């Protein structure tokens, strides 16, 4: 399973209203660095399986969500637990850094 693209509705139903934790990348189509994270992000979705939702949210489509979570820079990765953002990491430069970030919460 690779990372899924979220919209306002699926963000609410699959991230905010779920018990299952979620890793959400706030990204933008023009962000070249976001593309670089893509392969590592898909790999994490495969490795973690159904226990963790791994999704991407386009901040150009959902500026209100970017504002609500104070995302100023893309890519920003937020970890959600019980619908609450409990951790964030900005523009990680390796898959290992994303893995280490997740370790704190999983």
């Amino acid at each position, binding site marked *: 399973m690779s990372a899924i693209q979220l919209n306002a509705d699926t963000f609410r139903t699959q991230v905010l209203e779920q018990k299952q934790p979620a890793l959400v990348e706030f990204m933008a189509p023009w962000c070249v660095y976001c593309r670089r994270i893509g392969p590592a992000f898909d790999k994490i979705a495969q490795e973690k399986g159904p226990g963790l939702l791994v999704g991407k949210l386009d901040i150009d489509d959902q500026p209100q969500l970017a504002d609500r979570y104070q995302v100023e820079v893309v890519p920003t990765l937020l970890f959600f637990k019980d619908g609450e953002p409990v951790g964030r990491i900005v*523009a990680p430069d390796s898959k290992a850094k994303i893995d280490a970030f997740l370790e704190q919460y999983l």
Partner: protein
Amino acid sequence: MDKIHDVLILGGGPGGYTAALYCARAGLDTLVVEKLSAGGQMALTQQIDNYPGFEEGIDGFTLGERMQQGAERFGARTLLAEAHSAELTGPVKKIHTSEGTLQARAVILATGAGARPLGLEREDEFTGRGLYYCAACDGMACRGKTVVVVGGGNTAAADALLLSRLCEKVILVHRRGTLKATKIYHEPLFKAPNLEFHWNSQVTALLGEGRLSGVEIRQNETGKITRLDCAGIFVSIGRSPATELFRGQLELDEGGYIQADETTRTSLPGVFAVGDVRTKAVRQVVTAVGDGAAASHFAEEYLAGLDASH
């Protein structure tokens, strides 16, 4: 841990994946260790027009992916892992990574170079929060605001021009009295109505609470300190090679690049260096690719020598 690869390639940029393509085609068991995704520095370049064969140009990320796929078609494999340390002496080289220890008889170092930091206090704290190294990536975060660009070379000039179209005001801070950037940039820079120059000056402090909100600069001739309010600072003062892991094991030049000639052989047998991390005159995708082919040739020769001696 027990497996010993023929060739381990550290870094998945153009040099790394060209070496992988040639090694894999030569029948060598080849593993590329990449920390994020293929392409290296060029993956952040939206349009590459000086890599031949693409009449319309190509974006760097796609070119990197294609290089990876080309190498993997012949059996090269990729592991997404970050290297923590390297043991390069001896006939079996060991690389300790986030995914465990890897072993190989030959190693090709293709770790590239990255943006050089200012070396100021609080730089890490503000990175991504008002302090950036890539105007094309992060310029949007400062749209309509005042920003500072540090540097005077081609990258700084291109960044200042790009930002002058996005931002209300751009302040270029350069430690010399003239630009090092090629002439093609001078006229558009001096014509830009919202660009201000601070010559013979350098940034001495980063200011702000939680997020960068200003910088302190010193005019080197007068010693005068000025505080500038800004929403962002873009650092374009050159690049530095990713050679920390090899310091003390390999000969490096004064800039920290790995000493190796056109054969890509380093000071250690069985260790080769390709692309931007190697000491060389011209750092381009095409020269990195050339290095990759050379490294494969001499790695193959080295491995054949090992086999013959057993």
